[in-house]
């Protein structure tokens, strides 16, 4: 199963169509995997990583169509690359231990979280772009980069909407995971590093939403907070390899 993601070396005329082609191949590959091994295949870590990459690439395309800007590419493409790369490298077909009772729950847990991660990543990217653009505007030196960017307020709204959309998915996904874990491991599951990191991340996003809603935090403060949230999200994702009970177990 090869990941046929084509990536343009230079941003420009070839990069965007290349992303389009990449998405199509990627989708075909995911659907084929699912039809070969059933939907449970999505529960392997490599497929989850790959699905996340696909969603992020799709978001990029939507942004490109809507705002005619490829500037998020600088932040988005490396992540897509890392995700597909990691997914393509991992050899073992590990998956969460299946049992008929939890199967549906876990599938739900994985799907909502993948979507949640994608949205929160988008919100993180927008807050960085907001910061960069507002710095540029304050320095009062117009560049071709600024002229190609969407307006500051549009970036801001985009990030906020992504946050609003991503947060419920993240919450529901984490809840679903907790329910299953509670059933299987009892209350002690909270002590797991993965679970702790996830909860911390969730709290940061809650804080981000709250400060935005109550005080309208934007720009620097929001960007710092979002960066912390992003780092935690990466850690939580990475903690799959550390966690004892959230390990993807070979079937």
């Amino acid at each position, binding site marked *: 199963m090869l990941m046929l993601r084509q990536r343009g070396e230079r941003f420009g005329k070839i990069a965007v169509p290349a992303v389009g082609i990449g998405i199509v191949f990627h989708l075909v590959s995911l659907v084929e995997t699912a039809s070969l091994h059933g939907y449970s295949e999505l529960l392997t870590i490599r497929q989850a990583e790959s699905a996340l990459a696909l969603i992020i690439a799709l978001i990029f395309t939507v942004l490109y169509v809507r705002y005619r800007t490829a500037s998020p590419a600088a932040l988005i493409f490396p992540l897509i690359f890392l995700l597909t790369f990691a997914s393509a490298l991992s050899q073992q077909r590990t998956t969460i231990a299946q049992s008929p009772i939890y199967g549906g729950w876990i599938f739900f847990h994985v799907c909502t979280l993948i979507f949640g991660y994608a949205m929160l990543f988008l919100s993180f990217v927008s807050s960085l772009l907001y910061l960069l653009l*507002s710095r540029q505007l304050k320095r*009062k030196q*117009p560049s071709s980069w600024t002229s190609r960017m969407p307006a*500051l*307020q549009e970036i801001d709204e985009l990030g906020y909407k992504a946050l609003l959309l991503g947060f419920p998915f993240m919450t529901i996904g984490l809840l679903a995971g907790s329910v299953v874990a509670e059933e299987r491991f009892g209350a002690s599951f909270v002590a797991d590093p993965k679970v702790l990191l996830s909860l911390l991340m969730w709290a940061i996003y809650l804080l981000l939403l709250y400060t935005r809603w109550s005080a*309208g935090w934007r720009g620097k403060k929001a960007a710092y907070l979002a960066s912390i949230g992003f780092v935690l999200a990466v850690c939580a994702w990475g903690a799959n390899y550390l966690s004892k009970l959230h390990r993807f177990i070979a079937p």
Partner: protein
Amino acid sequence: MNFSVLGVNHKTAPVEVRERFAIPESRLPEALGKLTSMEGVEEGMIVSTCNRVEIFARSKDGECDLQRFVREFFGFSEGEYEPYIFQHESLDAVKHVFRVASSLDSMVVGESQILGQVKEAYATARALGTVNSQLDQLLTRAFAVAKKVRNETTIASSSVSIASVAVELAEKIFGSLTGKSVSLVGAGKMCELAARHLIAHGAKKIFVGNRTFDRAVSLAEKFDGEAIPFERLYDTVPWADIIISSTGAPHAIFRKEHGEKFLQARKNRPMFFIDIAVPRDIDAGLNDLDGIFVYNIDDLQQVVQSHLGDRRKEAVRAESLVDEEVRKFEARAQTAEVVPTIVSLQQHLETLRQAELDRVRGRLGELTPEQELAVETLTKGIINKIMHTPITTLKSAARDPESTTVIDVVRKLFNLRPDPKQESTPEPVEAAAPAPARPPERAPAPEAEAPALVKQIQK
């Protein structure tokens, strides 16, 4: 390509001279009529704007005295204003038209008005029938070139006035300005101008604060806005997204601590301060606050300058685009000159073929349809083979400035009259015996023979 252009523009003549040349719209038909009735002039068009008055013409043989037209139409004496007048002929005229339409000849390079003005002049001339063939093609081409220049360079994409830069920056911050509110602090002319620009781009609510309340009221009325007493200024400013300040106050009206309060009241939504007062109304420290953007008159001027610089850089690219288009136009015009010769050559040979066929038909006797077809194919095939190299040579000669020599030689060799429809005298040609017909569309004669033939023809 007997195009000429004569005129005055902002580069060659001061306004006192230009206004003497100006032709109001009402007198345009008269001027065009006079121009095209002049000896030698086939087509004509006149562009008259505040920066330029230009007279375009196409003459029959490259001889037309546009100077005389100017003298007669405006009643100038011989030599009067001569130093201010420029004149271009043939390819230079083509290039000039392309440059004017693409706004490379404008005072503010890249401004879009000129294209509209040229189009208008073209429409008038067309309606009057003074532009109908080659000049029409030239203008149509010029509009296409202008479009290409706009699309392929960024010559016209940035703002180059203070007010439009302010609008551009506001749009960079807020996206669409629809429904945004604006606060004017001070009721000066510049304030009014900037506000007008913002409103034209969709800004809605306008607050006017001024030390003299009456002036605030009268300015607010102009924009259908709201006058604010100066004491309440600090309470109302947070309502506005864009603040334009131009008071005569000797010290800053808005300081950092004000900015902090504004942001708190607005839940950190961004604010855009435009300070056009000297001395400045807004403390530079305000710009350090997250979400507040302050541009003073120098900052705006700096953006204008950098945009102008960009335009100048882009203009170099645009010029080379125009040069390329001029070359293409020239090549096309020359091909057009060669076409009648090719057509008459083809017709001449076809007549010969028919005549010879008719002559031998009696001797051939009854032919089956297959044989008939074979004879047709054979004779046509021979003609096509013979014609191939001369036609290729003629076509490639069209790209050569000395093409007329080749055209003349071909005409002389085949005794072609200037009128392509003219019948030429058939000459006796050895009748080919009906040999087994070969496939007619064989590969044409090798290209390598062409240069040799060109040399022969040129000798």
